[in-house]
């Protein structure tokens, strides 16, 4: 023990998993410490071992994992040396954890109260009623209203944000010394994420907790943590103060990570991102010495021949790269070459003069529990009938939306989950039927056309989904997957087909040999490229990207964003780009449409919508995004209360009024704000607009 203030010290932890391929070194020489009242960020992409660290501390590693070396010092003892029973008594009591996905971390068949009270009953020996009393206080302390009602509720009755608060309350129930947060906000909307981060920030400060914040999101870590530890392939590559690490990264990997982030700052938006080339390393065959070598543009022969140690820099941080001190100021973008990528290019300012390629007019989609469709669903699945019967009979997912997308234009569609953005997109490519309204494709009304007349439309409009895993047939090779739509539409034949496949693979920058591979042999980023290649196979003019890059790691994301951008310029494609990540949307889009509960409340050119934002909802969304570049946002931040789903249906007035921080008064509650369009085509639906005049 070096510093009495340290409540947790991880020393030179090395850990291996037994797999069918042999032993896999998941962590190698990982060391860090957490002080009382401090929040340490553990950042890394998938496979970096960040969650393994969390599990190792809790003693929740499976039987396949063995700790080879190192110690986990807590309260003067090595956690590794405790008996399973002693470990259990610390778990959830002195050291507790909040997991990523609140939807699945709560047991669906136990009440909230029972789940919050459990640790109190087993660790503190409270009676059930005492524990439930305490649970009420705990829920109140994490900002849950009406806690007495909530303890009787079941998890599915709460929204995601509320569920996460419940889990935080559970983790805090026994007054732990250490709280581990494993991607606690990744599954939540930005607005809810902002609420939870505020709460965590406050809890950290008031409770003198030591927090280990595990996340892939650097901006979130920057917002919450004083110090950060960057993990890559199970190794610590850089470890120091967040402010320093993020503003002047020293390790090439950190530099690359930050360069691949799309930023909301105005100057960055027009630039291409500079992705880290290559993909995440294969953990079973790691390169010798420096694990980052294959992707590092600064690589020299010494990198492979010498063991890379964590070295302390002049400002106190530690970096695992021998060049870090010498070339501290070399930026990722200063590199001699752009790794074969197209040179920097300005996003062409877009003139929406042409007629919309695809146009939705007054589109409405109502999901109802009556009707033939739901009868069918009811027969297929008995469960659904139950649920639907209790739901209000009509849910207007899309409520009279008009939106036009011109050839070569990218429209970014943003909004919280449940606002209807995916429904709108699916209606526009006719994956689901619309209830009313019209859809024009190249000037032709298609919303009521029978399927057999849609062949041309199907060919020219494609969709790319979020999860490449579930949309690629695992039993078909990449080549077969890409050929299928071409055969279906009779676009090419025989030898022509193979040529076209390699052409498409080249377009998405995959080697032609990949045509022979099966999806499971590809990484996440590669699978998504295959998904894009398949969408491009029919030479479409319009592609819906429904959270198409959200599941990818940051360093891989940037490459796909660039790819989408290049393809657009080359083929004059239009995209409807749906994402919860406002920075990415702003980066890629010409125009942005902001959706709230089935309507578009603001739409216009990116600059006009975001800089500065006008509509209160846009403003709230924007200020919820944690950012590197804009520290002032921290103070002027506005916060939304509640979330979309939890708010009662508002039949009159502005839909946003129950949560609107700028509500004017009665008028907002009574009268639906009209859509006002400026000369530049900026459409806003808010009473503030007319109020100011």
């Amino acid at each position, binding site marked *: 023990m070096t510093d009495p203030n340290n409540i947790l010290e991880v020393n030179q932890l090395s850990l291996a998993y037994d797999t069918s391929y042999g032993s896999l070194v998941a962590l190698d020489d990982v060391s860090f410490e957490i002080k009382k009242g401090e929040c340490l960020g553990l950042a890394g992409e998938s496979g970096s071992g960040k969650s393994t660290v969390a599990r190792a501390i809790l003693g*929740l590693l499976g039987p396949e994992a063995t700790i080879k070396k190192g110690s986990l010092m807590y309260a003067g003892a090595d956690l590794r040396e405790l008996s399973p029973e002693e470990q259990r008594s610390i778990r959830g009591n002195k050291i507790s954890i909040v997991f990523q996905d609140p939807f699945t971390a709560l*047991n669906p068949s136990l009440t909230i109260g029972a789940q919050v009270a*459990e640790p109190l009953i087993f660790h503190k020996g409270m009676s059930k009623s005492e524990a439930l009393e305490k649970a009420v206080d705990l829920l109140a302390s994490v900002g*849950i209203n009406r806690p007495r009602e909530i303890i009787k509720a079941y998890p599915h009755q709460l929204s995601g944000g509320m569920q996460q608060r419940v889990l935080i309350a559970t983790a805090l129930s026994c007054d732990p010394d250490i709280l581990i947060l494993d991607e606690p906000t990744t599954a939540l909307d930005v607005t809810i994420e902002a609420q939870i981060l505020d709460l965590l920030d406050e809890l950290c400060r008031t409770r003198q907790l030591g927090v280990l914040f595990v996340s892939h999101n650097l901006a979130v870590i920057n917002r919450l943590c004083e110090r950060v530890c960057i993990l890559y392939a199970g190794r610590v590559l850089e470890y120091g103060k967040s402010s320093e690490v993020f503003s002047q990264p020293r390790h090439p990997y950190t530099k690359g990570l930050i360069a691949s982030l799309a930023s909301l700052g105005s100057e960055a938006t027009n630039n291409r991102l500079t992705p880290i080339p290559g993909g995440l390393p294969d953990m079973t065959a790691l390169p010798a010495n420096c694990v980052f070598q294959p992707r590092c543009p600064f690589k020299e022969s010494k990198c492979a021949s010498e063991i890379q140690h964590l070295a302390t820099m002049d400002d106190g941080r530690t970096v695992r790269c021998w060049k870090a001190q010498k070339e501290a100021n070399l930026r990722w973008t200063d590199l001699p070459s752009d790794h074969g990528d197209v040179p920097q290019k300005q996003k062409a300012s877009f003139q929406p003069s042409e007629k919309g390629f695809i146009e939705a007019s007054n589109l409405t989609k109502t999901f109802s529990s009556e009707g033939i469709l739901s009868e069918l669903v009811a027969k297929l699945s008995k469960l659904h009938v139950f649920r639907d019967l209790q739901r209000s009979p009509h849910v207007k997912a899309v409520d009279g939306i008009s939106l036009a997308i011109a050839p070569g234009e990218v429209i970014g569609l943003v909004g919280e989950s449940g606002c209807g953005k995916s429904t709108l997109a699916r209606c526009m490519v006719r994956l689901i039927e619309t209830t009313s309204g019209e859809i024009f494709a190249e000037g032709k009304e298609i919303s009521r056309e029978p399927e057999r007349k849609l062949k041309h439309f199907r060919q020219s409009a494609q969709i790319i989904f979020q999860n490449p895993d579930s949309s690629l047939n695992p039993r078909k090779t990449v080549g077969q997957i890409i050929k299928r739509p071409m055969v279906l539409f009779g676009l090419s034949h025989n030898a022509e087909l193979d040529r076209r496949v390699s052409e498409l693979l080249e377009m998405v920058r995959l080697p032609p040999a990949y045509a022979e591979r099966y999806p499971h042999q590809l990484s996440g980023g590669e699978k998504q490229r295959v998904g894009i290649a398949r969408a491009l196979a029919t030479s479409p003019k319009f592609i819906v990207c429904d959270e198409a890059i959200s599941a990818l790691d940051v360093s891989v994301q940037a490459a796909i964003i660039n790819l989408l951008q290049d393809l657009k310029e080359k083929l004059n494609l239009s995209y409807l780009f749906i994402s919860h990540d406002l920075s990415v949307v702003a980066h890629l889009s010409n125009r942005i449409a902001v959706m709230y509960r089935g309507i578009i409340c603001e739409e216009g050119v990116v600059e006009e919508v975001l800089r500065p934002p006008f509509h209160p909802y846009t403003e709230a969304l924007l200020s919820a995004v944690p950012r590197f570049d804009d520290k002032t946002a921290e103070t002027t931040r506005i916060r939304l209360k509640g979330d979309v789903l939890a708010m009662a249906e508002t039949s009159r007035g502005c839909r946003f009024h129950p949560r609107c921080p700028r509500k004017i008064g009665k008028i907002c509650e009574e009268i639906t704000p009209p859509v006002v369009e400026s000369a530049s085509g900026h459409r806003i639906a808010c009473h503030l607009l007319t109020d100011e005049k």
Partner: protein
Amino acid sequence: MLVYILKRIVYIFCILAVMSVLIFAITQALPGNVARMILGEFATVDQIQAIEEKLRLNDPLPLQYWRWVSALLTGDLGDSLVMERPVAPLISLSLQRSAILAFMSLFCVASIGITLGVIAAVKHNRAPDYGISFFSYLGISVPEFFWGILIILFFARYLGWIPATGYVPLSEGFGTWLSHLIAPVATLTLTLLANISRMTRSSMLEELGTNYVTAARAKGLPERVVLFRHALRNALLPTITVLAVGVGWLFGGIVVVETVFAYPGMGRMLLFAIEHRDLPLIQAGILIITAIYSLSNLSADLLYAYLNPRIRYGRTIA
């Protein structure tokens, strides 16, 4: 919810209506002249005509069907042709005996099956898991009558612990009554056990892999609490559905088992009725089995809904 239950009940009536037509049609298609079956080989033409007159067997089929159904609706199941007694009390008596058999078997299947399934899941891919898998597959892949004969040979003939066959009413003493039930119940249990234990095992394994079970472990709860309170509770939901389907298999099994053990229940009665072309008995028996099967499915669904808070409490509150 209420709407749903009503819907299901209407649905059941529809099934029964369709079944009644089918049953009627099939029994009419049975080979042989009914009157001759009743009166035997040597009946005279006059006798046959007389009985056909009496039973109105020469009326058009739709009319006969209508008469049967309208009598059914007033609760009159008709008279047995062979035994010349009303069908209702006959069926009710054998139904009671079969119900005892069915409930006891179902109880054994559920309790033993779930226990074995949990053990197999917890000891996943270790000796107990393999052992349980082996024996439950053995149980399912060998037909009832084989187990029945084996049990009779070993426990009744060789060890002499239990009576080989037959049935004794409860009035002759609980012990004797029970001893006659052991063999048929054990046979039925053996053949149904596999499905339940396999189902419990796989849903339990699935539960043990969920995030909330990991979260429960991370709370530092004792392993038994994690297993029973967090995992088993959810794992039982799909098992209930399988149990309801099990009722269907049970009927098939009961016919065989009652025959093997000479147990006077529904199954034996139906066989008897079919052998003797006792139409009213066949018709009423099959219809009742259909009704029971539909009702047991409905109650399983309702139980499932009741135990699943996601269905019981639908609304979002915060």
